[in-house]
């Protein structure tokens, strides 16, 4: 991350980093445009599209009807003609209306048409959590897109990667599913002013360790880092890895860490069955047989709205630490950290929308 040593680095929120990435790409390339319901309103998708309308006009910052299926196809067609659409979805759950166009057309066009056409587009999607988001506003569906050749999937977990991955996604000549998480929006990090790219396919070790490898996907990386602190208090050293991009997936970095620690726990911000965690665990086990592997993620239920049940639906620092402890010290009796860390953005976060 050499660019981080630049002089012109400031602390920026995830929201502002996304906003800046899009604004800079729109300045650099007139073919880039933003489209989606309410991208032009005063809330500006929680601020991520704020100011773009004023700067670039309604031809390049387009509000839409509620027609996700058609708008996706329209993005694909405009991309085939050389434009670079960024289609914004305020909840990832709504991508389920776009599956036919994303999977039957966007993912396949370049191949099915023998390379005669390309589909450079970005589908931004926000995963919701808490405040009773419930069954239909909380899903993390990234594994469905990882499954299909022709699509790329990225899930940056900090403001620096948010900007770098967004610029890379916009410049990419393939459809990119951009996975954001509502609870990451208020987090901040040092972000260079100048445009820069975070290349896909490079996992990042965000906390070194020797006893177990924790892979945290999307928002769950934050919980894994907090779990790492809890574990250190009982003398367990956990290495925490952020895959950053899920397709392409940097499985080798994850595998080499897991081989070193001998233990792998993948914590996904989604269901586990046939999920990203299954892919990572299976791919690592194909390379080497570890003493212990595990997956955590959403409970195998629909997401309830009531906070008391919702709390049990998601993994958290404590439950991750407990699981990791039992993997590192299988003989010892179960351990539960007594403190449950409150995560900064949870304080900052203003529900419900």
């Amino acid at each position, binding site marked *: 991350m050499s660019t981080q040593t630049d002089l012109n680095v400031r602390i920026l929120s995830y929201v502002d980093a996304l906003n800046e990435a899009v604004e800079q790409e729109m300045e650099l390339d007139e073919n880039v445009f933003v489209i989606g319901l309410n991208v032009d309103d005063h809330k500006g998708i929680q601020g991520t599209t704020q100011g773009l309308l004023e700067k670039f006009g309604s031809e390049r910052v387009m509000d839409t009807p509620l027609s996700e299926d058609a708008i996706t196809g329209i993005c694909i067609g405009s991309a085939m003609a050389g434009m670079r659409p960024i289609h914004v979805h305020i909840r990832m759950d709504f991508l389920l209306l776009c599956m036919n166009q994303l999977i039957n057309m966007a993912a396949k066009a370049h191949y099915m048409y023998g390379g005669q056409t390309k589909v450079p587009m970005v589908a931004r999607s926000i995963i919701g959590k808490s405040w009773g988001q419930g069954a*239909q506003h909380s899903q993390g569906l990234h594994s469905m897109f990882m499954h299909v050749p022709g699509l790329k999937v990225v899930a940056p977990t900090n403001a620096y990667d948010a900007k770098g991955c967004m610029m890379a996604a916009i410049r990419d000549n393939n459809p990119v599913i951009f996975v954001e998480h509502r609870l990451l929006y208020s987090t901040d990090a040092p972000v260079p002013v100048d445009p820069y790219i975070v290349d896909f396919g490079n996992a990042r070790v965000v906390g070194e360790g020797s006893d177990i490898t924790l892979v945290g996907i999307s928002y769950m990386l934050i919980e894994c880092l907090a779990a790492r602190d809890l574990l250190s208090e009982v003398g367990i050293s956990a290495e925490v890895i952020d895959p950053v991009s899920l397709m392409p997936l940097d499985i080798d970095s994850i595998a080499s860490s897991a081989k070193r620690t001998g233990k792998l726990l993948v914590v996904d911000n989604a269901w586990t069955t046939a999920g990203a965690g299954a892919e990572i665990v299976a791919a690592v086990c194909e390379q080497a047989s570890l003493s212990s592997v595990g997956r955590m993620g959403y409970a195998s239920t629909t997401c309830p709205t009531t906070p008391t049940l919702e709390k049990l639906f998601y993994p958290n620092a404590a439950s991750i630490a407990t699981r990791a402890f039992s993997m590192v010290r299988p003989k010892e009796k179960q351990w539960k950290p007594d403190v449950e860390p409150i995560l900064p953005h949870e304080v900052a976060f203003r529900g419900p*929308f």
Partner: protein
Amino acid sequence: MSVKCPDPEMLARVYYSLRLIRRTEEEIARIYPSDKIKSPVHLSIGQESVSVGVCDVLEKNDIMSATYRGHAAYLAKGGNLNQMFAELYGKGTGGAGGKAGSMHLIDMKAGVLGMSAVVGTTIPVAAGYALALKRENLGRVTVCFFGDGATEEGVFSETLNFASLHNLPILFVCENNGFAIHSPLSNRWAKEALCERVSTYSISTHEISDGDVFAIRQTAKAALNAIRSGEGPQFMECKTYRWREHVGPGEDYDEDYRSRDELTFWQKNDPLTTTAKMLTDLKRQAIDIDIEKKIAEAVKFAEDSPWPDSKELFSHVYAD
């Protein structure tokens, strides 16, 4: 008003329903800042007359389908008030045991189909229920409420075609409040010709432009009769206005997407006020007192109710 002197019983029923909804949502707005309601709330304040006018002429065993902005329809159809508040509070005594929140209210006992937070998804589901009612052949009907934005989803057109093709007993009611979140019709509709379009599926259409609760009621009554006598689906477009912000308890006229003048216009014609005037003070006060009592009870019920047992997380994933 289109009806000079409505039958007093009906008038009382309609006023009761309008008032119950208004006061319930005002109470929700009052409680909201306390964070006791950990659910997004999409208030219907200002739009009550659509739900009330239509539901007043439904039979108890008819079926009603609505959206995440469903408090009004839920109450107008006779949905349980205690269970509604408990559900908003996330308590185990809620209609869905705390798993639904405000956006997925349901009360099958009262004929209230489950609501959905994904715009448009309930439209074909309501039609599917109507398909079953057609087979049942007992004269029951389904009413399907949705917003102007929902008509932009392809599934709306698909459903109209199927419902008409198979002559389903369903009344489609579009609550056109002119906005999808903050997006005005002009950003979303190529032409304001909804009824005209729907009629090309050979569905009879009816447009009510002023939110008049009696006009809505009369129109719905005639439409329901036609449906029950086997004439197939009917469609109503009711212009209305959302007084509060899209989601949450407050107002948002300081934002540039709409002006307070619009609100003033609709408040002048607020069916709650006009129907209130048509009642004797005595009658009105009796109703008001009764409503305040019911709401207070419901809030207390919600506050006193226990949280769901943690094992409930794993119940109802699959049906036996």
